[in-house]
């Protein structure tokens, strides 16, 4: 008789960058006699019969030992309830987090056998007593949401005659949100400045939305003095009170992410699971980090930032401003994954009119470059962010090596086409410095910022 139950993993705090773990399904089965019990009974009977036939009571006594061991399961065993879940949310220097294995049953003497396999790692197995509370270090990915451990726990009585084959089974899922950096100067298309948006920035300026009031300071206009508030003021220095307004923020920035491939540093690990793949730098990890940095920089300046899949595999996130939008973007970036199909929508997605578009792609396929060129033709300012990490082709050979060389040649052609169309190519690694330099280049360009 099986009893199914759901063990809910504790939600993890968002500020530490971990997504809540998926509920884990556990199956509790009644204890069954183990094959060792069968071996003992067979050997006991054989020795008893042999002892009688040979007239050797000492041989029969050997069978008595095995018969003694077989009395264990007659007393019955309460089913165990081992549980595995993330404990502390701390991550160590090697990028590992602590999971806790414990038995929520009555704590009687049993053995817990935990078997688990993480991505790119070999199966690990641990046998522990049910009275133990074991802490296990589980490696986490650099960023994104991943299943980090698929596990099964069985239990056995300490005398090894009762077994519970699958006392608990499930998986541990961890999500690490990308950490942003901040760019000092930001490129902003000149024509976007003349489009007053329906949103407001966090800085004081010449808008219409009231930001607050305060005492007059050098630089405040006389027209901003709130005479009624000044009359009501009890300030001893007699300084007039001014009303401040929020500055309008105009630019809409769209992060278009090409998530069709997640290429790791070790090229051989792209097509087959290899050791250390979980902690390997990859194109999607770079896309997450670069997109978070760009979004953080523009949102901090009061601009609106949205996100879309460059090839329409996921629903877009409309541009908006504010800290909540940044958290929404980080959540989207955390769940960013390679789409399960290569069949995208027939109609290509379009960024909002006049938006500044950052296309984040490894540019392994020419259509990414063509997509950027198409958006330039429709009046957008486009910057390409190259997310491919420095590749190590050492693990590839034969046709795989040749295929990689062809891909890299196609990528070089895409870069040339981007340069020909005047599309800036920024590296994802250190994108904040690249943004800064790009902003300076655009300001110094003939005719001013475009």
């Amino acid at each position, binding site marked *: 008789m099986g009893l199914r139950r759901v063990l809910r993993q504790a939600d993890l705090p968002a500020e530490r960058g971990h997504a809540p773990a998926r509920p884990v399904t556990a199956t509790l089965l009644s204890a069954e006699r183990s094959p060792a019990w069968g071996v003992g009974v067979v050997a006991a009977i054989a020795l008893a019969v042999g002892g009688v036939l040979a007239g050797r009571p000492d041989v029969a006594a050997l069978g*008595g*030992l095995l018969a003694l061991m077989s009395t264990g399961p007659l007393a019955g065993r309460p089913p165990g309830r081992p549980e595995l879940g993330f404990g502390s949310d701390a991550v160590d220097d090697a990028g590992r987090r602590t999971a806790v294995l414990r038995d929520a049953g009555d704590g009687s003497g049993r053995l817990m056998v935990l078997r688990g396999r993480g991505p790119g*790692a070999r199966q690990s197995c641990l046998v522990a007593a049910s009275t133990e509370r074991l802490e296990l270090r589980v490696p986490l990915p650099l960023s994104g949401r991943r299943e980090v451990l698929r596990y099964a726990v069985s239990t056995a009585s300490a005398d090894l005659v009762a077994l519970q084959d699958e006392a608990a089974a499930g998986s541990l899922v961890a999500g690490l949100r990308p950490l942003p950096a901040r760019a000092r100067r930001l490129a902003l298309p000149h024509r976007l400045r003349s489009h007053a948006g329906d949103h407001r920035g966090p800085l004081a300026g010449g808008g219409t939305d009231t930001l607050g009031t305060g005492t007059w300071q050098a630089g405040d206009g006389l027209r901003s003095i709130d005479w009624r508030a000044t009359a009501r003021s009890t300030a001893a220095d007699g300084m007039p009170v001014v009303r401040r307004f929020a500055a309008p923020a105009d630019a809409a920035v769209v992060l278009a992410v090409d998530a069709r491939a997640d290429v790791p540093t070790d090229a051989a690990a792209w097509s087959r699971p290899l050791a250390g793949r979980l902690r390997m730098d990859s194109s999607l990890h770079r896309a997450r980090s670069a997109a978070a940095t760009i979004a953080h920089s523009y949102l901090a300046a009061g601009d609106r930032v949205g996100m879309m899949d460059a090839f329409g595999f996921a629903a877009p996130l409309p541009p908006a401003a504010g800290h909540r939008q940044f958290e929404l973007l980080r959540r989207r970036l955390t769940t960013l994954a390679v789409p399960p199909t290569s069949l995208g929508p027939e109609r290509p997605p379009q960024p909002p009119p006049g938006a500044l578009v950052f296309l984040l792609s490894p540019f392994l396929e020419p259509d990414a470059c063509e997509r950027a060129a198409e958006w330039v033709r429709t009046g957008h300012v486009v910057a390409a962010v190259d997310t491919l990490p420095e590749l190590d082709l050492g693990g590839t050979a034969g046709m795989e090596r040749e295929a990689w060389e062809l891909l890299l040649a196609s990528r070089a052609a895409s870069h040339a086409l981007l340069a020909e169309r005047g599309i800036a190519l920024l590296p994802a690694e250190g994108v904040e410095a690249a943004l800064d330099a790009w902003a300076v280049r655009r300001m110094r360009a003939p005719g001013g910022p475009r």
Partner: protein
Amino acid sequence: MTRRPVPESFEAVGVRTVPSAALGAVAAALFLAVCVPAALAQASRFGGASLAFSLGAAGTAAALAVWIPHHLTTLPVLALLVAAYLGLAPAPGWLLPVVVLVLHAVLVLLGARSTAPASARFTTAALAALLRAAWPVQVGAQALGALALAAGTLPRGGIAGTAAGLGAALVAVGAAYAAVRIGRRAGGP
């Protein structure tokens, strides 16, 4: 193309662990400690071919105990242990407690290995739980062996002696069963 070591999926923190292969090695060493003297005794009576056969069988069973943690491994190992005990005829009285101890240890160690894959590691607390569960059985089995030896030496074996041994075994098993039931009943003594 270089082969890189594949990392563990998880690592236990703050506990001492013993690899499963070490349990198999201990079981194999105990097993050989009984089988090799028996093989030498066989050789003194039946010649070199018997020695080679016995050592070959013992070596194969020891290798099985170390490398293949499976329930079925236990059966040939137990059978060879008993055969080795029988081969040491006329067995001295002190040999029975030793064989009982070795048989039990081999059964427990190989049974523990059978619960987990070959790559498993056992915590020291798990091994302590195994020992705690094994000692009452071992005490009972030694008492049983003493009874059987006493019953067997008086009439010098034979059907009556064996029947007395089996009777003693049944009494010991019944007593152990009753003790377990009473001990686990809520509110029992």
